[in-house]
């Protein structure tokens, strides 16, 4: 329960999908396998991003041409990424995620002290 709320708060605050908070908490608190956590987080992101995009679209904030230019290659990337994920060891999913979190945290903290 708390995982979804925390991810949503993070998403609402910083305008991202919230996966960076969801995946590690699914691993740490729900004891999920890293692959299952990443997959389950993507499912949750469909719901969160669609709701966020719909709200923003109602205010006319979505630039559809730019969205399409990001979305089309992203779909191919996702197919490649999921295929790749089945081939790497589970622990590398966790390590990759930890590195991303550290980069994200440093960026946030830099913003806090800028």
């Amino acid at each position, binding site marked *: 329960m708390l995982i*979804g*709320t925390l*991810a949503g*708060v993070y*998403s*609402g*605050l910083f*305008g*991202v*999908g*919230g*996966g*960076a*908070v*969801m*995946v*590690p908490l699914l*691993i*740490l608190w729900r004891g999920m396998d890293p692959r299952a*956590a*990443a*997959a*389950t987080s*993507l*499912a949750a992101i*469909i*719901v*969160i*991003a669609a709701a966020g*995009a719909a709200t*923003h679209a109602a205010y006319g*904030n*979505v*630039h559809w*041409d*730019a*969205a399409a230019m*990001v979305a089309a290659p*992203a779909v*191919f*990337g*996702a*197919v*490649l990424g*999921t295929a*790749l994920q089945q081939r790497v060891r589970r*622990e590398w*999913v*966790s*390590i*990759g995620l*930890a590195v*991303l*979190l*550290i980069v994200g*945290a440093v960026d*946030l*903290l830099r*913003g*806090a002290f800028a």
Partner: protein
Amino acid sequence: MSSAVLATSIDHPTLLVVAGFLAGVLGGLVGIGGGILAVPALVYAAGLGQREAIATSLAAIVPMSIVGTYRQHRYGNVKVREGLTVGVLGIAGAAAGATLADLLPDRLLRLGFGLLMLLIAAQLLHGVRKARVAEAGARTG
């Protein structure tokens, strides 16, 4: 009100495509949406404001996450019920986050979430290390 804003002056289309692709790879590999990459790319390459970049990034993430989830489902990795629960709660959380952003100073929020993410990263790495030690123990023992 116009829900279809077009005619953006996109200065660096290649950069947008590359950022989109990388966001998709990250989504598939570690299960994040990729907004971390897409938002700054949209600001820089398409000249969007922060709010428009966030809105556009969210829209772009939807098809990627649908296809990614479908592929993951075929690999048998998706816990559908938990995903939906977390997603629906996430919407409520997002509303709470927007309110919180209004109440608390930006600096405090960045500090709080920055530290939280560092803590989570440390716990993840600790978990990996523990698993490795256990594995090594099982091999020698």
